[in-house]
């Protein structure tokens, strides 16, 4: 499992992996928003957390279709299906590797972009924290979508369409946790705990569904 984790990480960091493209896309999306809504700093500070969350959501959807497709093309997916370790664990490891390669850079980049959005320090911290907890959920549920669409030649767009409605709860609780941290009367912990619960739930549902879909796609 560790070997698989390291292999996936190396593959995504080296040439052609495209791990950094997600961050670049994230920064571009966030940079484009002020041109759309105007350079009003107060407004940007107010909607900043939401923009960062939507940008992170879109950016983590971007690389999802490659999660299993490269393995399928070079045949290593068949090896993974045949090996002794349960396929669910393999999928979970691949999800973790994918998240470390694409999700974690988003979390690291988010404080910098929060500064551009004129957000205050507690909001910046809360955004980074909720992204850290919430983006794995997107990866896990996205793995199910990626596995379902793995056999399709142009599944990338379809994966986004299938996964986005399922990711709505993560977005809602991520953003509301950030707002709860900034605005005084609302408590921070309940939405944050629910966000954590969502991530854990998706960590179960996603790999199980993805493993089932991968098995179905090969036989």
């Amino acid at each position, binding site marked *: 499992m560790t070997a698989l984790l390291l292999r996936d990480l190396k593959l995504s960091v080296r040439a052609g992996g495209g791990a950094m493209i997600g961050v670049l896309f994230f920064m571009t999306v966030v940079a484009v928003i002020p041109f759309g809504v105007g350079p009003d700093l107060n407004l940007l500070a107010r909607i900043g957390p939401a923009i960062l969350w939507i940008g992170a959501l879109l950016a983590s959807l971007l690389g999802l279709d490659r999660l299993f497709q490269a393995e399928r093309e070079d045949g290593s997916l068949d090896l993974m299906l045949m090996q002794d370790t349960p396929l669910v664990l393999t999928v979970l490891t691949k999800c973790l590797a994918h998240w470390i390669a694409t999700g974690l850079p988003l979390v690291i980049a988010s404080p910098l972009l929060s500064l551009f959005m004129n957000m205050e320090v507690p909001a910046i911290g809360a955004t980074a924290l909720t992204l850290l907890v919430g983006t794995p959920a997107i990866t896990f549920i996205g793995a*199910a979508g990626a596995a379902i669409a793995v056999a399709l030649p142009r599944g990338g767009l379809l994966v986004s369409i299938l996964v986005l409605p399922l990711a709505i709860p993560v977005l809602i609780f991520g953003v509301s946790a950030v707002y709860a941290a900034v605005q005084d009367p609302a408590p921070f912990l309940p939405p944050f705990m629910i966000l954590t619960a969502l991530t854990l739930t998706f960590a179960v549902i996603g790999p199980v569904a993805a493993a089932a879909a991968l098995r179905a796609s090969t036989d």
Partner: protein
Amino acid sequence: MSEPSLAIRKFTDLANPTRFLALSGSLLPWLAAATAVAFAVGLYLSFTTVGDYQQGETVRIMYIHVPAAWLAMMCYSVMAISALGTLVWRHPLADVSARTAAPIGASFTFIALVTGSLWGKPMWGTWWVWDARLTSVFVLFLMYLGLIALNRAMDDPTRAAKASAILILVGFVNIPIIKFSVEWWNTLHQPASVIRLDGPTIDPEFLRPLLVMAVAFTLLFFTLHILAMRNEILRRRIATLRRLAARNAGREPMEGRR
């Protein structure tokens, strides 16, 4: 059990498409007739009951809108049961059922959305509100469309069936979560200002046509669903026959030449 060939003793016997075609063929006229009768009664009741003293005539939209919304949810449940049938029992008709239910469910959801929007304009003064219930129905509509797109994208029906069955089940687990979180989101961001139809205090005057219309819509759903399933079975048979014919057409000239 006088006719052993087509007698259905167990649920698994329905798995035979020929038996299903025979049974549904004899059932269909009755279902269609029942649908027509229920709609006649329901529409008559809907148009003859008095209008609401506040909402006036527009309250009649409810008799279309509410049953459509109920059916939209029931259709997804039917699809989830079919998806279980595909994955667990490998029931050959289950994937036909799941595949054909998706467009019907999408249509009911669309009807619910459109009538709701038409009803909302005179009542709330706006076509659309980001109310919790509206939003979750809209998300349901998007999921139906995604499922249809997935089904269309795959050529092989059995592979498409398995993939969409997994997606249906994931969605079935997720729908309560989405509904709950949308409600949370709504109460957090804006006050609960929109109250539609005061729940239990609905007058029997309105309840009677509503229930009849609900029965009519349910019957309509099953009629359409069985029709669509028959169509799908026949379409697959024709595809198989064509494939066979094409294979034989390639073979015969070769044999003729020898």
